[in-house]
């Protein structure tokens, strides 16, 4: 097995814009290793989120190669990619995307249920994970009853509950204040990052860059720099 969790090479992705096409990715190349937290940074509209969507298989690229855990996603059928995501990918969204009519523990249990675990066991396991992130007293609270930081912790629990090998975070601190953002990344790094896992974070929040093991800088649909030390990116 390669030590590369994600291997993206010369990926091209465009979207229709009237009679022409707008290229969001123009040959992006990127690798992510097991046991590392990789941050993809760059200005708005540079293609960060598109690259993230391509990596997790929610968007299909038109050109290039895309290998996740030694699986060539471009050769997989749609249902295989969906199944792959279900088992191997955990998501943390910018807007949390917690279902408002489900409690914290029910929200966190969804990936397990999608993986065929019985509701009872899934809820029990989700409760344990929520307790690990300090929400044991909020298991039965609805999203509307939780603060931004608590919502993000529920989202992290949902992303981790089925023990995926790839965790995708899209602007995880965008809806949080500075302190809550720091805590979220602390939690993410301590609970999500393990030797057999890879965490990819898309962000433009420079207050959390120091949590990264590596930083990939994007501009105009391409990865223009990889920084093995986050400080290098700050100084660049």
């Amino acid at each position: 097995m390669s030590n590369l969790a994600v291997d993206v090479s010369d990926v091209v992705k465009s979207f229709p814009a009237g009679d022409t096409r707008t290229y969001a990715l123009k040959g992006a190349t990127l690798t992510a290793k097991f046991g590392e937290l990789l941050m993809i940074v760059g200005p708005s509209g540079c293609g960060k989120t598109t690259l993230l969507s391509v990596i997790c298989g929610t968007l299909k690229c038109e050109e290039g190669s895309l290998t996740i855990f030694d699986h060539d996603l471009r050769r997989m059928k749609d249902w295989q990619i969906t199944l792959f995501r279900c088992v191997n990918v955990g998501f943390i969204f910018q807007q949390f995307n917690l279902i408002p009519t489900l409690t914290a523990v029910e929200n966190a249990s969804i990936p397990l249920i999608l993986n065929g675990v019985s509701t009872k066991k899934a809820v029990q396991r989700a409760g344990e994970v929520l307790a690990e992130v300090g929400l044991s007293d909020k298991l039965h609270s609805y999203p509307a009853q939780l603060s931004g930081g608590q919502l993000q912790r529920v989202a992290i629990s949902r992303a981790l509950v089925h023990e995926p090998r790839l965790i995708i975070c899209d602007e995880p601190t965008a809806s949080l204040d500075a302190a809550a953002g720091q805590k979220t990344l602390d939690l993410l790094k301590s609970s999500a990052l393990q030797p057999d896992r890879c965490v990819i974070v898309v962000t433009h929040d420079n207050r959390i860059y120091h949590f990264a093991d590596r930083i990939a800088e994007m501009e105009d649909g391409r990865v223009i720099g990889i920084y093995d030390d986050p400080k290098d990116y700050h100084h660049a």
Partner: protein
Amino acid sequence: MLEIALKMLFRDRAKYAMLVCGLAFCSLLMCQQSSVFCGIMMWTTATVQNIGAPVWVVDAKVEQANEVIPMRQIEVERVRSVHGVAWAVPLYIGIEQARLGDGSFQNIQLTGLDTGTLTGRPMDMHAGRIEDLRLPNAVVVDQVAVEKFRRKGITIKLGTTFEINDKEARVVGICHVNRSFLGQPYVYTTFDRAMEYAKPARKQLSYVLAGPVPGVSNRELAARISKLPGLRAIPKEDLFWMTIWWYIKNTGIPISFGTVVLLGVIVGIAIAGQTFYLFVHDNLRYLAALKAMGARLHTLAAMVLLQAFSVGFIGYGIGVGLAAWFGNTVLAKEQPPFFMPWQVPAFVAGVIIFICSFSALIGLIKVARLEPAVVFR
């Protein structure tokens, strides 16, 4: 995931209540109106049901049970002469005027039963004996007569007298029969006395009732009798449906009720369809998140279908339940007419299934087109 789908539905109380109310109202409207329509249709066939004879012989031009073209009394003998006829008796039915003790008038449906056999007698006697019809001036009245006379301040009981075309009628029995379409009370007497009560006319026989010998079906017997010139014999079941179809084709009743039922369908589609669309639309972001997390399309489709059919089932149950409660309440008063055969709830169930399928389809199209990547936007 189906449990999750139900929680998403039931806990969104405002939309859930609106969906259930819309479908319940739609079911109630369709079920209640269809049942009232069926009740009216049953009223049109009240005479056929009350008399219950296997074969009805009428003038060849008659199109339905409430249309009486008088025949000569000799027709009874002609019918009896047909091979396969076990028995044939005369029946008189005519609208007459009864004058009450206080001088007021009431239209009645005078029914003259064969004096010897009392064929077509009412089966449910509340007071008195039907055999007492053979006593002088004897009549048996139905529950409608009791009710209508009561409204005019006259209490009908055994022994009460009133006049029919200036001839005395004495109540010897009170029965319960199906109401007539025009709402006139049934007043039973013997055929011979009915001839006395009725205004004199050259032809006074309304129907000949006949029954087949063993081994001959009603239809076969009717076919044989119909070969007699000027006569038409109709099996009871055929006369029942002929009458209903006549009213459907020749009156505005089905259009009137059909319009309300159609309104029910439209209201159902408009309210339920629109609300369910909004429900799915509001949850689209979360469904996309589920799709991104690995929920396959058939899982999401099952969730949406379950949600649609759950509200459909609950709304249908409430609507049909309310219609049944309404029916149960009005049946005691016998007005408005109400008859809910199994076909009515089955029809309403079919419409609700259509509405739910339509609503779910709109939602499913949205879900199918959903790009999971939308969750990153």
